[in-house]
C-alpha cells in the first residue's frame, strides 16, 4: 500500500462521510411519507379503493331474487340460503341468508352469476373480530319475500337505485362471465338469447 494510496483513502473517507451526512441531514427536512392508518388519515382507506376491490361481501336483500345462484357458485360453501316457494305470500320466501366470512376467500365467484347484482363485494376490509361465530354474517332476521324483477323500468323509487347499482356492478365486475347465466335485465339481449337457446 503506497503512501499516496493511504492518503487517498483517507480523503475519500472524509469526502464520502461528509456527503452522506449531508444527504441524511437533508432528509430531516423532508415530510415523512408514512400513512398513519387507521386513525390519522384525511380519508378512510376504504374510500380510496377502486370500485372493483373485492372486500367483504354485502347482500342487498331488497333486490335478491332468491335464485340460489350464488350459493351454488361458491366453491367452498360459505353461503347458506333457505328459500321456499310460498303460494299464499305470492313468491319465494327467504328465511335465511348467511355468509361465513371466515371461510370466504374473496374469489368473487358468487357475485358473477347473481342476476341483479344483489350480492357484491364492498371495499370494506377490516374484518378482524373476536370470534369465528361473529364472522358469519346473517342478512335475514325474519322471513322476507324475494324480489321479482319487473318488465321495463323499476317503479319503486326505493329499489330503483339499488338495481341501478347492481347492474352497474355486474357490468363492470362480472361482464366476461355473463353468458353462463341469465344476465341482468338491462344487459345486452344477445346474451340472454344464447342462454335461452
Amino acid at each position, binding site marked *: 500500500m503506497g503512501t499516496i494510496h493511504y492518503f487517498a483513502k483517507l480523503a475519500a473517507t472524509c469526502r464520502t462521510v461528509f456527503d452522506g451526512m*449531508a444527504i441524511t441531514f437533508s432528509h430531516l427536512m423532508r415530510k415523512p411519507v408514512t400513512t398513519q392508518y387507521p386513525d390519522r388519515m384525511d380519508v378512510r382507506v376504504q374510500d380510496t379503493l377502486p370500485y372493483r376491490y373485492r372486500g367483504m361481501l354485502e347482500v342487498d336483500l331488497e333486490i335478491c331474487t332468491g335464485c340460489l345462484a350464488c350459493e351454488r357458485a361458491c366453491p367452498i360453501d360459505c353461503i347458506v340460503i333457505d328459500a321456499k316457494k310460498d303460494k299464499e305470500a305470492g313468491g319465494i320466501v327467504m328465511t335465511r341468508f348467511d355468509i361465513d366470512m371466515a371461510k370466504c376467500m374473496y374469489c368473487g365467484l358468487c357475485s358473477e352469476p347473481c342476476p341483479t347484482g344483489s350480492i357484491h363485494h364492498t371495499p370494506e376490509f377490516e374484518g378482524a373480530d373476536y370470534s369465528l361465530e361473529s364472522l358469519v354474517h346473517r342478512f335475514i332476521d325474519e322471513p322476507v319475500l324475494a324480489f321479482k324483477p319487473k318488465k321495463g323500468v323499476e317503479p319503486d323509487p326505493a329499489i330503483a337505485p339499488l338495481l341501478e347499482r347492481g347492474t352497474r356492478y355486474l357490468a363492470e365486475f362480472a361482464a366476461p362471465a355473463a353468458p353462463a347465466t341469465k344476465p341482468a335485465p338491462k344487459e345486452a339481449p344477445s346474451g340472454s338469447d344464447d342462454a335461452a337457446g
Partner: protein
Amino acid sequence: MQAFVDGLIAAGWFAALPTQVVYALAMLLAGALVLFVFIRLVAGSTTWVERRIWARIHSRVGPNRVGPQGVLQWLTDGIKLFMKEDLVPAAADARLFRLAPYVVLMGFVATFAVIPFGSRLVIAEMDAGLLFVLTVTSLIVVGILMAGWASNNKWSLIGGIRAAAQIVSYEIPAGLSILPIVLMAGTLNLQELIRQQGWAPWEWYVFANPFAFAAFFLFFTAALAEGNRTPFDLPEAESELVACFVTEYSGVRDLMFFLVEWGNLYVIGALVTTMFLGGWNAPVLSNSVAVQTVVEFLVFFAKAYFWVFVAIWIRATLPRVRVDQLMSICWKYLVPIAFANAVAMAVWVLVFPSGQPAVAAVMTALGGALIVAFFARVAFHLRRARVRSRQRLTLSPFA
C-alpha cells in the same frame, strides 16, 4: 460543590455531625440526584429522540402515540421492561451474570462524578479528572466481558470478546487525541480546562490550532468506537450476533445495559464539549449567581446534547464496518495519525507556548466555512429531492 457544603457547615448547619459524615451524606445525595433525575431523564428521553430522528431520516414518523408526539414512549418501554421476568439461564454462571450489569452501570455513572454541569455545578473537581474518566469507563469493558462470559452463550461470548478488543484498541487513539489538549492546557482538571477557554468559538480549543482541530475529529471517532456506537457497533451486530452480550438478559438488567448505551452518548458529548468546545462558558448575562448557573448549565447541556444528536445522525448514515476493517481503522489510521498529531502538537506548544490568536481566528473561519459548505450540500440534496421525487419539504420536527 465542596465549597457549597463547606459554606453550610460554616453557617452552623449540621453542627451535631462530624464533617466527614456530612461530606459523605452530601455525596450520596448528589449521586442519587444525578442518577435518578439526570441520567434517567437524559438516557430515557434520548431513546425517544433517537427513534424520532432515525424515523425522519428514513422518511417515517416514529413513535408518536404515547403522550404528545410520543414523548412518554421511553417511560412505557421502561415500565414494560420492569415487568418482564428476570431470567438467569440454567447454564449461566449465575453470580457473574447478575453482577455484570451493575459493573457496567458503575463504570458509566462514576464518570458523572467529574463531568461538570456548570462552573459551580460539579460533584467533584478532581485534578486528574480526565484520567479518572478514562479509567472508570474501562470498567465497562470488564462488565461486558463478564456478561459475555457468564451468559454461557456463543453469541454473547463472541460479542463480549469483540467489545473488549474494540474498546481496548480504541482507548489508544482516544488517549492520544486527548494528549494534544492536555499538552496545550497543561492540566487534567476538567473544570480548569473549561476555565481556560472562553464562550466565543475562537476561544475554544478546537479552533486553537490545526492539530487541536484534527484531535477533535480523532477523539470523537475513537469515542464513538469506545461507546460501541455505529459505525463501530460490532458487539451488537444483530445480523451476526443476535444481541451480543445482552442476548440472555431480560427485564431490569437488560434495561441497565440500554441505560448505559444511551447515557454513554451524553458522556461522550460532555467530554467533547469540555475539552474542545468551551464547556459551560457563557457570556455574563446576569449578576445573579443562580441565573448565571442556569445559563451555564443550559449552554453546556445544549453543546453536549448536540453531539448526542450527531451520534444518532451518524448511526442513521453510516453502515457498520467489518471486524477486520474496525481493527485496520484503529491501528493503521487512527493510532498513527493521532500519534503524529500529538507529536506535532508538542512541537507547536514548544514554539508558541502561549497560543497564536491569529491562527485561532483562521481556524475558526475555516470551521465556519466547513459548516457553510455542509449546508450548501444539504441544500443541493434538498433541491434534488424536490425536482426528482417531488418530495414535500418541511422544517417542523413534528410534521
